[in-house]
């Protein structure tokens, strides 16, 4: 798409990757799609005791167009599913999705007429954080996993739409 495609798989591209990924992974702007109980742990993680800003991800953007990471925090039911899809579609590339808690991951112990059995039925997911709700330590671990994933990406790989 941009200039980087002209270089191909070369020394210049890998150097560029490193610089771009370094910048991306330490400055996530996240969109908290908070619905349920997990929101309480989400609040704890963002507050003073656990302090997610140590990892450069403390700044929530409540406009999907300004966000890189979509945190889906809590149960998503059939009524909310179109809204989640719409929020995801509104986000610009590059974007990542974190499924926070077991309800977002697989529906959890809510297996009935109302709930969606995991948000991956609606949108693609990058990182799953288990727990009902996950403790803040688990959230930080998930964030570090996402940073590791981002650092392995190549500017050539991502399909810009």
């Amino acid at each position, binding site marked *: 798409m941009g200039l980087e495609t002209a270089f191909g798989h070369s020394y210049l591209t890998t150097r560029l990757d490193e610089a771009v990924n370094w910048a991306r992974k330490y400055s996530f702007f996240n969109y908290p799609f908070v619905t349920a109980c997990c929101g309480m742990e989400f609040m704890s993680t963002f507050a003073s005791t656990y302090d997610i800003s140590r990892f450069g991800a403390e700044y929530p953007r409540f406009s999907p167009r300004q966000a890189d990471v979509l945190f889906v925090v809590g149960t998503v039911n059939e009524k909310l599913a179109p809204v989640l899809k719409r929020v995801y579609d509104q986000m610009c590339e590059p974007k990542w999705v974190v499924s926070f808690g077991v309800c977002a991951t697989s529906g959890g112990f809510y297996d009935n*007429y109302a709930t*969606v059995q995991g948000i991956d039925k609606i949108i693609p997911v990058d990182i799953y954080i288990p727990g009902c709700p996950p403790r803040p330590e688990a959230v930080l671990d998930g964030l570090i996993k996402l940073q590791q994933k981002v650092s392995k990406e190549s500017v050539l790989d991502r399909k810009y739409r």
Partner: protein
Amino acid sequence: MNSYLLETIRTKFPDAVLETHAFRGDETAVIRKEALAGVASFLKAELGFDFLMDLTAADYLPRDPRFELVCHFYSSKHNYRLRLKCPVYSDDATVVSLTPLWAGANWFEREVYDMFGIKFEGHPDLRRILMYDGFEGHPLRKDYPLKKRQPRIPHRE
């Protein structure tokens, strides 16, 4: 061992009251659904029951008066609780609305309509509240399968 309260309702509405009992201290009057509005306004005006604490229903499939509307009243003056129940037949699942008496009944009745399909006469705005437009059936009915999903958007894979 009927209390003063249940006795009062019995004497005031001899035709409407089907049964009264007090299981574990919860005083209950089972009344005909036609008399619900009358009994409720009597409770509110004469007996000091100023709170409609809860309004819900239960499905007793396969029993014949299939549904039962359950109202819990509370009197803050006398610190007293009362439960009113009305049997509702499934072929005539319509009950009079309590919204003119208690504004809070509005949403409770919408939820009962959504979950059980009982209609309320005189309700200002009877729509689904928890489920969405186009959802078929009423989930809390016993014949609605637990896992019958009706997705709004197609799922991936």
